[in-house]
């Protein structure tokens, strides 16, 4: 990672605010909106933004954590309401988990409950989904939006071609309330220029290969806008979601280009806006294999399988159901798939949830793998298809493999 140059600039802030924006900042529209505006002005000042621009929608990466609770309650108690559609990230399905597990600390449950209630009070779309751009809150090409969440920011910028900065949950919520964001960063075309050339010199077969690619690219680029060439087949929605999510586990990637498959530049040259890449990185099958090996910490017996980080799509649930059809998950192994309420509804209509449940698995909604509801697995060993799930380390050990390997391990009770 090259250190960004020291910013020399103004010491006096001069963001231009319209009369209405000044009124919000002055508290004329209530204390909640005022706090939201104060935060946006601070961000604008940090980046020398000249003004605010309207946004059409926002996604707040809500979480059942105290910092999140503080801010959303501050806005809710101050009477704030979202002016543009603002969706929410998963916390956890409180009634289900408290019925199923006894050990979840009361205090944590209380925080989660208050967070979910406060987002309802500010009038958010209660999607509780980390992939809201699929169903509940879909940006269009060239819309200015404020989307937090690791897969959402790069997906929305690159696959859809809307513009968003790498928002925090709170700045995205503040933008949802005010309906605006400071004009800075990726809302400006020059800042959407590619930085690193990534030459993919291997065939990417499936989502899991894209997962490993995302992990590898995030790790080696760290911070920047990678431009990927050498991809021969159009990536699927699921492959792109996984790629996006993993680039933000090992790095901080808000945007990328796959010329020919992403919308904004149809050639690498255009992606770099005529400039040379800062760096060129090649990716071979060997590199991806090594990335996968790096992620393994153990093998052998397992207590649970955790899928759906990011939330599984209908197609992924269908694939899991197909692999589990007529099989039984081994006694003593718990099998979880996290998804959104919308997706589960569709999966039930198709009988997929029923197939998974017959095999002994569960499909849970509104829930993130990184929440206190999973405390029962704290000292247990599991398996997942998501390095992101493994990285958060809520569990003792987590093995990482393809979906079909996860299913096989769940049925056998172990993985070699």
């Amino acid at each position, binding site marked *: 990672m090259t*250190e*960004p140059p*020291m*910013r*020399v*600039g*103004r*010491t*006096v*802030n001069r963001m231009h605010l319209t009369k209405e924006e000044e009124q919000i900042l002055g508290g004329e529209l209530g204390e909640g909106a005022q706090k939201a505006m*104060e*935060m946006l002005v*601070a*961000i604008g*000042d*940090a980046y020398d933004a000249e003004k605010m621009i309207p946004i059409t929608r926002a996604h707040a*990466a809500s*979480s059942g*954590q*105290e*910092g*999140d609770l*503080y*801010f959303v309650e501050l806005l809710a108690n101050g009477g704030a309401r979202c002016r543009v559609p603002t969706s929410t990230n998963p916390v956890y399905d409180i009634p289900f988990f408290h019925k199923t597990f006894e050990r979840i600390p009361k205090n944590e449950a209380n925080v989660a409950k208050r967070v979910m209630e406060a987002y309802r009070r500010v009038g958010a779309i209660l999607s509780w989904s980390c992939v809201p751009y699929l169903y509940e809150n879909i940006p269009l090409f060239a819309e200015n939006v404020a989307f*937090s969440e*690791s897969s959402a920011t790069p997906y929305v910028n690159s696959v859809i071609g809307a513009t968003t*900065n*790498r*928002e*925090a*949950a*709170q*700045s995205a919520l503040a933008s949802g309330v005010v309906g605006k964001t400071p004009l800075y*960063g990726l809302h400006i075309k020059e800042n959407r220029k590619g930085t690193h050339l990534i030459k993919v010199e291997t065939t990417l077969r499936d989502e899991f290969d894209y997962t490993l690619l995302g992990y590898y690219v995030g790790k080696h680029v760290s911070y920047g806008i990678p431009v990927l060439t050498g991809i021969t087949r159009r990536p699927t929605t699921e492959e792109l979601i996984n790629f996006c999510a993993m680039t*933000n586990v090992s790095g*901080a990637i808000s945007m990328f280009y796959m010329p020919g498959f992403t919308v904004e530049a149809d050639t690498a040259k255009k992606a770099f806006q005529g400039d040379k890449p800062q760096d060129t990185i090649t990716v071979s099958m060997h590199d991806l294999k090594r990335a996968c090996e790096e992620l393994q910490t153990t093998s052998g017996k397992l207590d649970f399988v955790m899928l759906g980080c990011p939330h599984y799509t209908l197609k992924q649930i269908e694939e899991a159901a197909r692999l589990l059809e007529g099989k039984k998950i081994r006694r003593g192994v718990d099998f979880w798939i996290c998804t959104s309420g919308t997706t589960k509804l569709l999966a039930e209509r198709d009988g997929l949830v029923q197939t998974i449940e017959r095999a002994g698995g569960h499909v849970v909604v509104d829930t993130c793998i990184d929440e206190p509801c999973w405390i029962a697995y704290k000292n247990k060993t599991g398996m997942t298809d998501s390095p992101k799930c493994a990285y958060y380390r809520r569990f003792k050990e987590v093995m990482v493999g393809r979906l079909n390997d996860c299913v096989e391990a769940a049925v056998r009770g172990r993985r070699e």
Partner: protein
Amino acid sequence: MKDHETTFRCHKIIGGHAEGEALVSHMPVCFYLTDPKTGTVREKDHDLKGKSVAGKVLVFPSGKASSVVQIDGLYKLAQNGVAPKALIVKDVETVLVVSAFIVKIPLVDRLEKDPFEAIKTGDFVKVDADKCIVTLTEQE
């Protein structure tokens, strides 16, 4: 020896004023990787490992890590009264602005001199973000 006082202009991001002993790090800081009860940095291989950020004027290049953990980390330090008193950074990003906003800690950047040349751990630093001024008393 006499203490030497110097004043630098800076750029306000989050207002307020605070003073305290400087703690200088040359590495990006993730507040989640500190002990929430004491403010002691526990991140492996960090140049502040074992040192506490509690009550300090923290001078560092930038923040790092996901928004959820960074904000929650600083929030917990503040709740326990062991957050830094002020933050002086070289490069600021959205998540750090949001974190400092939530816990109401003065945050400034663009010190007129490179903060790593100007400030040493142990110096006494006053940060008046509203007036865009950092005053330094060097410890001889």
